[in-house]
């Protein structure tokens, strides 16, 4: 049996190591580093017929640095594409008829004393999220190609961090050992911290990175308490041991279950990000390179909502009903508040971040409606949001690369000089406002239908978000793209071939998943049915096939190793 998931995790990690192992060059560095670099550079260049002395001559150094950076980019792109191919091959072998149960499972003891395993496996939801991550990474690399050319390392460190992050993202979705999940969950912070703090934009990037770190660490520590609690009560870190009627964890008293639930939930709410613990995201996105923002908002934040489905709901079913209304309330605030704050932004990176606060409100709303449509919609929303918001960040990034600013007020009339850029911006924006025919509509609509079946009031309140979405997208588009072309923008380049290749796959996915989302739903639906109707009183609303799927799931989980 091929260990697909381990390969998918290891491949980008190896790529990162290779990028780091590339000969170092020094454009501006401390004497100590220059010495190190001279050694390394000399060693690597000797076989190529160059000379170690080159590092002493400044122009040559720069050339060498550029060359190694170019190699670093190629390696990064190559490894990310290879990872995508591995993940795609794995997805093709995924048995849709058993989408509710874990597949491609690997379980190896890791720290035996604490019962920690290296255990990975995916159900339908984890699979589509891993696929989404693997699709986004090569596009981010492509979009960030020239972003760091003027840096001392030509961006080599940045590209290595991207690969490190990819390994961890796949790991966090694949982990089926709660402790392993926790390790990935926390370890992911490190590459992101450097991607913002060291490679970010603007003077505020250090502060933004610290804020991100403090928030995340705080959440992580709270979660750690719950992780330990789960082990103490459940007697295992293995997810398969912890869920189900017969598990020790299922027998825990409701009060304890609520505390454990809360521990996980706080960490996930911060990550998601949910109002009122969302403020790290706009700062982080505003200080991020667009590629970082794509991975941060498109993938990393999904760990929060994914965690709510996988850990909060499934580990502590007895506690869920107590949390439903508070979470629904916070989701609604997130939807409306995020949308209004988005309307009030002048910085496009921050604007898109706030739209994501609003969109994550829809996702958590769908999850906690506990209906089949709500949860399937939420799971699909995670994927669609990754593509749509990812594309939006990339396109804002193209603007930033041209003008050096992400402020709306610095733009105007771009449509006239760069019609293709404006066109993809508009299509992506329309995806962001959930226009039917584009992917996000399907997920948002399913959330609406599922939530209304749960209770009409939150659905009606959330529907206001539909109008606000039109305002924040189209107003941003109007101010940046329409009207007379602003002075200084007349020579603005239209999309380059590289940029086109970076966003075209996303636009194609958005369109295909908008018109034909059923294949993805076929993978998601069975997995979702596990958690449908967990809370009390809503089971009837979600009854359609949900109960059948749930019972079937239990058996299959028993079968799967």
């Amino acid at each position, binding site marked *: 049996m091929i260990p697909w998931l381990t390969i998918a995790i290891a491949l980008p990690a190896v790529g990162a190591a290779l990028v780091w192992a590339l000969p170092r060059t020094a454009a501006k560095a401390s004497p100590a580093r220059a010495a190190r670099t001279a050694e390394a550079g000399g060693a690597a260049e000797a076989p190529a017929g160059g000379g170690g002395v080159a590092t002493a001559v400044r122009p040559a150094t720069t050339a060498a640095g550029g060359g190694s950076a170019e190699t670093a980019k190629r390696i990064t792109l190559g490894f990310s594409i290879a990872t995508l191919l591995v993940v795609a091959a794995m997805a093709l072998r995924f048995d849709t008829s058993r989408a509710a149960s874990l597949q491609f499972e690997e379980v190896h003891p890791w720290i035996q004393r*604490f019962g920690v395993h290296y255990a990975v496996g995916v159900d339908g939801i984890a699979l589509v999220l891993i696929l989404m991550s693997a699709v986004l990474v090569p596009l981010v690399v492509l979009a960030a190609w020239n972003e760091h050319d003027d840096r001392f390392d030509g961006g080599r460190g940045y590209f290595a961090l991207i690969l490190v992050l990819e390994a961890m993202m796949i790991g966090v979705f694949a982990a089926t050992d709660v402790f392993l999940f926790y390790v990935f969950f926390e370890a992911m912070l490190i590459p992101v911290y450097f991607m913002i703090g060291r490679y970010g934009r603007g003077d505020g990037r*250090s502060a933004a990175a610290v804020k991100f770190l403090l928030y995340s660490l705080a959440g992580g520590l709270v979660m750690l308490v719950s992780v*330990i609690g789960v082990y103490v009560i459940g007697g295992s870190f293995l997810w398969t041991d912890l869920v189900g009627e017969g598990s020790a964890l299922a027998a825990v008293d409701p009060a304890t279950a609520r505390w454990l639930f809360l521990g996980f939930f706080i960490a996930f709410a911060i990550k998601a990000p949910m109002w009122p613990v969302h403020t790290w995201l706009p700062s982080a996105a505003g200080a991020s390179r667009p590629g970082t923002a794509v991975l941060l908002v498109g993938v990393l934040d999904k760990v929060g909502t994914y965690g709510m489905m996988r850990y909060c709901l499934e580990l502590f079913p007895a506690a869920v009903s107590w949390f439903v209304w508070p979470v629904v309330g916070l989701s609604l605030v997130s939807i409306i508040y995020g949308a209004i704050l988005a309307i009030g932004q002048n910085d496009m990176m921050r604007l898109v971040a706030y739209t994501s606060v609003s969109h994550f409100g829809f996702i958590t709303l769908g999850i906690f409606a506990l209906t089949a449509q709500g949860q399937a919609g939420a799971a699909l929303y995670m994927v669609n949001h990754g593509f749509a918001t990812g594309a939006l960040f990339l396109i804002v990034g193209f603007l930033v690369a041209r003008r050096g600013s992400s402020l709306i007020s610095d733009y105007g009339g771009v449509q006239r000089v760069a019609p293709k850029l404006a*066109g993809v911006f508009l299509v992506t924006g329309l995806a962001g406002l959930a*226009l039917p025919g584009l992917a996000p509509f399907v997920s948002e609509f399913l959330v609406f*239908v599922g939530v*209304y079946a749960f209770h009409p009031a939150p659905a009606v309140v959330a529907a206001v978000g539909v109008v606000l979405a*039109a305002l924040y997208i189209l107003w941003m588009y109007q101010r940046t793209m329409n009207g007379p072309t602003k002075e200084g923008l007349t020579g603005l380049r239209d999309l380059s071939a590289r940029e086109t290749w970076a966003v075209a796959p996303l636009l194609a996915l958005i369109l295909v998943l908008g018109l034909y*989302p059923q294949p993805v739903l076929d993978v998601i639906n069975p997995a979702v049915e596990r958690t449908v109707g967990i809370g009390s009183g809503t089971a009837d609303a*979600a009854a359609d096939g949900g109960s059948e799927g749930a019972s079937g799931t239990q058996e299959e989980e028993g079968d799967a190793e």
Partner: protein
Amino acid sequence: MAVTSHAYLAADPAVATAADSAVLSGAWLLIALPLAGAAILLLGGRHTDKWGHWLATALPVASFAWALLVLFDLLGRAPDARGVSVPVYQWFSVGGFEAGVDLLVDPLSISFVLLITFVGSLIHVYSVGYMAEDPGRRRFFAYLNLFVAAMLVLVLADNFVLLFLGWEGVGLASYLLIGFWQYKPSAAVAAKKAFLINRVGDMGLLIAIMIMFSALGAVSFSDVFAAVPGASDGVLLAIGLLLLLGACGKSAQLPLQAWLLDAMEGPTPVSALIHAATMVTAGVYLIVRAGPVFEGAPVAQTAVTVVGAATMLAGGIIASAKDDIKKSLAGSTMSQIGMMVLAAGLGPVGYVAAIAHLVTHGFFKAGLFLGAGSVMHAMNDGVNMRRYGGLARVMPVTFATFGLGYLAIIGFPLLSGWWTKESIISAAFGVGGTEGMVLGTAVIAGAGLTAFYMSRMVFMTFLGGKRWDEGVHPHESPVSMTAPMVVLAIGSVALGAFLTLGDRFAGFLAPATGAHPHHFDVAHAFTSPYGLAALGVMVVGVAAAWAVYLRKPVATTAPKGNLVTVAASRELYGNEINEGLLMRPGQALTGALLLIEDKVIDGAVNGLGAGVLDSSKGLGRAQTGFARTYALTMLFGAVVVAATLAVRL
């Protein structure tokens, strides 16, 4: 009577499938052809500049031809078997929820398809001439094709979710075309405004669909209508009112009317096709299509008639005061659609009248807009009627076609508008009682307003003295523009009689809508009190316009006016109301929340972050040192955590 008449829709959803007819099972081609046109023109880029507009014109024509085949196929079936469901593929399904890309071919949908593709084709032809000089012509034709495709989805959908796709799709096309000259800030703002106000209506439609699935268990037409008899009054009322909200947005009915006049920023062919003949009538289509729901909710029906009547009068008043020829026509469109909405709110007695007026209006209003475009073409794109005058001699074809459209819309006897407007008047009075009197009188008043503002327009534009700007040399438009106008003028003259005489259209529509029309009695229309009243107000309206705008020379600048005319020319303060009730409170709320976000929610965290930064600065680190400091701190923390874990366990 109303319920049973939906026999084929409600009784047995699987009653007819398209398998037996290649023409019907290929109904998806109706949509796919123009959609392919849009895709080719947009993705093909400049390579398609030379021939793109011809391809884009040919595709709606092909759709029209296919629609004719579909029509003949339907006519070859028994009346009760003319509703055919054409499944294309499953869009998405979760649990018990299913949304299919399924089409419903029936007399109602095919009537719309024929109107959309026929008028649409003519307007494509017209645009070849009208947009000849525009550098963005390819994009224009791509958007037009996109519009036709979306509009066909809207009317052919067999469930409310697919209808919603078409519904927002036409909204997108409308947005793109209003803002076609997006470098003009006014056009960009108008486009956004239209989309935004439409979204408010769309929100209503969206919630209506949620209620349908939750309370009725389905979203397809047949299943929803089948569930209506068992549904509670509250559910039907809620669905009805929310559908009405959707209709108000799309059809520019009060209180969501404010976008339509601004939408005239778009090129004139767009105003003709989207903002007169087809898209804005979608609200009427929705109300008639969802007839069983409204028939189960009398209060919602009353609301429909009230909205229709109010918009009819408001639109007429606005049209009477505007000097901009296109805005005056837009007010007229509001008014005429209000009349249709009113008729649709009457229930089965009004459906045929509403749809028939919709079809004839599609012809004469499109013709009037194309005529206005022809005039603007001649007048260097000027739209101010106070700078027109005496154009009849210079532009004979435009004058003749515009004149026939004018006579049709004011209800000149035996022209198209007369038949369909008379039908609405008699349907309104037919309700009986006070309600019938009020509604019937309102429609007659609306007809009088129509006669006034349309006469005013014709007098100011084509008759009287020349008040042209300097340097304007009007000329007749090329054949590619006048030919469509001639065709539409023929429809303006004859279509009403063709549809109304012998109950041809009413009988055709009956199985689809449950309409039960009464026989149209020509003699009665000339002798009945309300028929005479309608003729009377028409004459009064024309005479009043003559007295003000033809007998005396028209001033080249608008007079100061009194309270009423000022209110009318400011669109009855619709924009001011929106600004006061929504925009300014919204801005205040946004400002307040921005402040709260910054000072309260984020304030604490920022303080904490700043504190950490300060302490690290205290260590005298260089900037690159920050990252390392925190990495080390974090690593240290992780080690502590791991150690604690090891000890505890």
